[in-house]
């Protein structure tokens, strides 16, 4: 049963939609169309000569081992971020759900990192892990590990994963906490009477009941890691060392604005567009439907 609103003036609904439509058209649709068009062109750095080449840019892209490495980096990075931030957030949410005293203060504090800008979060962790002055690098050296994200690709990847996850924990925490609080207490009590210990209750009752939340957050986190972590990477490793932390969005930027390969960069954005569209489809088709029990 959908409620229909009727307007007296037939133009009013269109007038009300206009600002939103204008913003969408100018800032989303038009650039997207531009990117689609540019991905079919080869242009020199100064825009003096332009040639229409059909799908040559895409052919080159998928033949380029560097691009495929970037793809792999992105997958590793995204799933590490999603896994780290979601598991930590779930752990914190389970603990916050149990706390009675000071719960509000605890929750508020946990939400703060979400307000930190990506670049700031990146720089924060960058300093803490700085091989020369960073406290964490110093502690790791104490443990016998010679941390250096300037030279070691693995260290650099871990650094950006930590910085990106840290920022996302708050968001995941909020959703997990809401999910936990929506589980009726009596279910947990029934499971306790049914002889399930706390650990078993979590894995057989609570975790399955949280699965709609978990699935939703998985998609959101992967999208976040794919697209919103540009600032973190730009402020810390700049994709290095030797492309070890180069992810797809960062390569779009470095190829297009530093390498000035506009056609190749546009082709990469089209690939990203396809990825984000398919993730959105997954989200709408599966999540919206499967949330209700």
């Amino acid at each position, binding site marked *: 049963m959908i409620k229909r609103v009727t307007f007296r003036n037939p133009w009013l609904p269109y007038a009300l939609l206009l600002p939103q439509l204008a913003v969408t058209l100018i800032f989303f649709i038009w650039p997207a169309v531009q990117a689609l068009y540019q991905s079919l062109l080869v242009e020199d750095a100064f825009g003096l000569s332009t040639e229409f080449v059909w799908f040559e840019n895409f052919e080159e892209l998928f033949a380029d081992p560097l691009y495929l490495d970037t793809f792999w980096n992105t997958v590793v990075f995204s799933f590490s971020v999603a896994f780290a931030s979601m598991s930590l957030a779930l752990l914190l949410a389970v603990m916050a759900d149990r706390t009675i005293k000071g719960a509000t203060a605890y929750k508020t504090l946990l939400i703060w990192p979400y307000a930190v800008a990506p670049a700031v979060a990146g720089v924060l962790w960058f300093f803490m892990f700085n091989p020369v002055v960073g406290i964490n690098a110093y502690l790791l050296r104490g443990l016998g590990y010679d941390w250096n994200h300037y030279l070691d690709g693995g260290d650099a990847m871990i650094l950006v994963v930590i910085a990106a996850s840290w920022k996302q924990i708050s968001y995941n925490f909020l959703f997990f906490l809401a999910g936990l609080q929506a589980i*009726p207490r*009596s279910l947990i*009590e029934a499971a*306790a*009477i*049914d*002889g*399930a210990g706390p650990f078993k209750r979590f894995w057989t009752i609570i975790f399955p*009941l949280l699965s709609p939340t978990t699935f939703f957050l998985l998609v959101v986190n992967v999208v976040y890691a794919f697209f919103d972590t540009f600032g973190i990477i730009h402020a810390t490793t700049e994709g290095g060392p030797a492309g070890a932390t180069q992810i797809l969005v960062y390569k779009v930027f470095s190829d297009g604005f530093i390498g000035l390969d506009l056609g190749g960069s546009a082709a990469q954005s089209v690939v990203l567009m396809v990825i984000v569209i398919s993730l959105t489809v997954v989200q709408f088709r599966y999540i919206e439907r499967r949330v209700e*029990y």
Partner: protein
Amino acid sequence: MAELHLSGVQKIYPNGYHAIHGIDLGVADGEFIVLVGPSGCGKSTLLRMVAGLETVSDGTIDIGGRVVNNLEPADRDIAMVFQNYALYPHMKVYDNMAYGLRNRGMAKDEIDRRVREAAGILEIEPMLDRRPNQLSGGQRQRVAMGRAIVREPSVFLFDEPLSNLDAKLRVQMRVEIKRLQRRLGITSLYVTHDQVEAMTMADRLVVMNGGRAEQIGTPIELYDRPETTFVATFIGSPSMNLLEGTVAEGGTSVALDSGASINLPDPRADLAGRSVTLGVRPEHLTPAADGSGMTLRLDLVEALGADTLLHGHLDGDERRLVTVRLSGHFAPGQDSVQVAATDAVHLFDRETGGRI
């Protein structure tokens, strides 16, 4: 199957709220005990203490000769049916019922035998492969019962299990639960706020008020001989009429504050001159010939078919509402009626509310 004994059970919450003030109750093997009282009287808290979901502040709870105060709910050999059924929404009906048995490491074929037997008793075999959200309220209720009976526990605990059902289904499930409990012979503790449910199901009732057991007894004992005005008004529907008065010289009658007088079946010379509350149930007030009874000024007449309820107040006492239940019909158009009390009257102390 086991006896259940509560002695001096108290509950004091960390914030100092005294929810249960020392309850003593012995439940015989196979007995069906109903805890009844208004909301906030502590009946659910008491049940949850027996289940092990709330800690016991003082006193002991003993199930089958074993003090269970410090045992986990799982180790108390109890099964509980919750008000919202608490079925696991992500599991099929079969798994809902098997969950508790699997957790105890029971053999697969024994689990299967028990689940199918319980499903047979409850007539839910065709639903074993469904999920709880595909079932109606009554079916969910049965699955919740099934989950309790497959465990073959010593004690069944019911926390207002029928309050989420519609009126018709409630009556039907009431009969089914009672029949099932008789058949299985399992000691049961049942919480409800519905006095009809309490009266019809209980072997014995515990009427609770403000964290205390006001009276423990069979439904008929409580109806015929309520020990306090609280029990008197809580048990029976419509509630017992309470009228203030003073016992007359010689103890043969009570002079009501409204001016009328009611004869006592057994003269109470010992009470002469004492201020009392006289209780008389609506069904124990009968029409009387003109001039021989009290005049009831009518406010409202409710015709229920088999009975008619007359609501009004006695001449001379505007504030105290009085209800009379007449069997049969009542001729409309009258604004007052003469009523007299039968022999079934109760006397309570006006200060303490206790029976005298």
